[in-house]
């Protein structure tokens, strides 16, 4: 726009000319001292101010009380143009920054198109147009700036969200690891403490048994005791039938408790009682059988305790939760034992074919099996089918497949089940650890493998875990 008819310097020289030509126009020029106000924010403006020589600024007072400089008013620039032309209250306060000469034109003079000052007409109109054009340009530039700022802000906010999510995830993992470490310590201590009484129980039952038996093997009482030891308990349905039979058949058995005890005996034992009825009281023979039975029960129960403790110990692998050459099947078997309580009424089949050893953390992998199995138990009815398969594929790949015949996973959530914090349960896993599939996913990933989940064609869900076969020298923790 330089050298055009809108050049600010050129037009301003016309204004200067007009001022020096006409004392009437010269009288419109006011002198402002530095810091003197032209007008105040919020006031109505009845003059238009044109800077002839000097400098001013338009300042906006914000709601928080601080001031923001909006516009610098140099020679040839207007102040109060917007408020003046729109008739609105001023959005700014005009302040002289230097001693300034300012041409102040009353609103009334514009009514007749500056008819009073013909020499000012043309330059002022051009200057105003020039000013407006400048401001419009500024507006466009600001708009563009704001747009790109918005884009930047959005990007930053997305990055922040992502960072927050990662932080949350790693926090979850750390809490989980802490839980597992605590659990491992607890289990190790607990296992040690429980093993002692379990051993005492087992050995005492054995000793008690030998004490009875070694006396005299031809003694019918000892024989009864022996029957008690060897006879497996029968279910209550069968027991009821046998009790009814005995009530009919044996006239000497009248007392219900006695009948129940007789019903638990094998037929030879009952015959033995009848044979010796004259020499040995029935109650004495029954007592012998009961003694044997209860010692048997002690043995069975304490063996179960010892086995549970053993698998709990190897399951948590507090001592060896480090990279080690492991057989995945050992961990799967331990996990199944630990989950007996959940699995005992499921139709579980293990199809564990030979697989090579691979480098892994047994304790962590066991959590993966646990997690998938507990989820399956949660959705299965009694008698629901669970299948666990291990397979090797060539030299370098192992797969573990866990499938069930439950309701499957709703298609709308199947893609999200490995996300942290994703759960369909109201209050965490019943096993009490609240581990998510996200953690399983992370564990498998750290082992260099991957986990996949799909619905089976017929019914139920299938988790497929693929792990590489590798030695621990090749495994770098990451």
């Amino acid at each position, binding site marked *: 726009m330089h050298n055009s008819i809108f050049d600010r310097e050129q037009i301003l020289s016309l204004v200067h000319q007009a001022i020096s030509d006409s004392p009437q126009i010269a009288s419109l020029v006011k002198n402002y001292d530095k810091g003197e106000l032209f007008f105040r924010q919020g006031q109505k403006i009845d003059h238009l101010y044109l800077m002839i020589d000097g400098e001013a600024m338009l300042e906006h007072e914000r709601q928080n009380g601080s001031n923001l400089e909006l516009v610098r008013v140099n020679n040839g620039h207007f102040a109060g143009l917007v408020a003046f032309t729109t008739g609105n209250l001023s959005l700014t306060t005009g302040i002289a920054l230097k001693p300034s000469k300012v041409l102040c034109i009353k609103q009334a003079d514009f009514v007749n198109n500056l008819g009073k000052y013909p020499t000012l007409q043309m330059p002022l109109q051009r200057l105003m147009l020039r000013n407006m054009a400048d401001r419009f340009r500024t507006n466009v530039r600001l708009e563009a700036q704001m747009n790109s700022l918005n884009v930047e802000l959005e990007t930053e906010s997305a990055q922040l969200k992502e960072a927050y999510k990662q932080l949350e995830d790693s926090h979850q993992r750390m809490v989980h690891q802490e839980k597992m470490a605590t659990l491992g310590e607890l289990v190790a201590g607990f296992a040690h403490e429980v093993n002692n009484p379990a051993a005492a129980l087992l050995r005492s039952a054995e000793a008690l048994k030998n004490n009875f038996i070694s006396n005299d093997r031809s003694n019918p009482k000892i024989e009864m005791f022996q029957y008690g030891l060897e006879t497996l*308990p*029968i*279910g*209550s*349905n069968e*027991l*009821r039938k046998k009790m009814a039979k005995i009530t009919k058949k044996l006239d000497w058995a009248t*007392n*219900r*408790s006695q009948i*129940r005890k007789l019903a638990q005996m094998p037929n030879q034992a009952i015959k033995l009682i009848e044979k010796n009825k004259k020499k040995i009281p029935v109650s004495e023979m029954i007592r012998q059988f*009961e003694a044997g*039975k*209860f010692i048997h*029960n002690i043995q*069975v*129960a304490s063996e179960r305790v010892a086995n549970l403790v053993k698998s709990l110990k190897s399951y948590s692998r507090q001592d060896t939760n480090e990279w080690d050459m492991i057989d995945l099947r050992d961990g799967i078997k331990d996990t199944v034992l630990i989950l007996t*309580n959940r699995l*005992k*009424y499921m139709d579980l089949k293990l199809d564990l074919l030979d697989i090579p050893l691979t480098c892994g953390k047994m304790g962590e992998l066991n959590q993966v099996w646990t997690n998938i199995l507990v989820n399956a138990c949660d959705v299965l009815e*009694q008698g629901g089918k669970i299948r666990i398969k291990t397979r090797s594929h060539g030299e370098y790949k192992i797969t573990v497949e866990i499938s069930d015949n439950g309701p499957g996973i709703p298609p709308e959530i199947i893609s999200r089940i490995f996300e942290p914090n994703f759960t369909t349960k109201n209050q965490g896993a019943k096993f009490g650890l609240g581990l998510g599939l996200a953690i399983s996913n992370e564990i498998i990933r750290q082992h260099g493998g991957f986990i996949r989940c799909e619905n089976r064609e017929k019914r139920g869900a299938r988790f497929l875990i693929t792990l590489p076969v590798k030695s621990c020298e090749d495994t770098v923790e990451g």
Partner: protein
Amino acid sequence: MEKHIYILVVEDELEVMDALVNDLQSFENYFPIETANSSEEAKEVVEQIQAEGSELGLILCDHVLPGQNGVDFLVEQYSESIKTKTKKVLVTGQAGFEDTILALNNADLDHYIAKPWTKQELDSVVIKLLTDYVIEQKHNPMKYMAVLDAVRLADYMREHKLSDY
């Protein structure tokens, strides 16, 4: 057929069942014991008891059972009005807090015995609840003096002038 007041024990582990029944045998001359290894079986037993015109005085029930669990079984029993008078005890090592609350609120659970139990604890709970049952159902208290809470039964008879029962 002679009418009885039964005790029903529902427990799926046979060794545990053995131990429970053994601990309860002192009651058996007065309250015959029936056993069931699952809720389903327990329901059949309850039907049989009703069919012979007998009563079910007390259920001792484990929580973790094949099929329907113990709490759900008790809740279902309670919802059939005919059995509401039966005393109900949960004998378990495994019922969680919420299951227990459910049983308390919806099955009118009378007592909770944690495994492992002691003979003393089991005896006192069974004596208390069967004494309640005998009094509430207006059975002849004299008959049960030897095995239940004789003091409470005697008090009850005095208060209700039932000495000529």
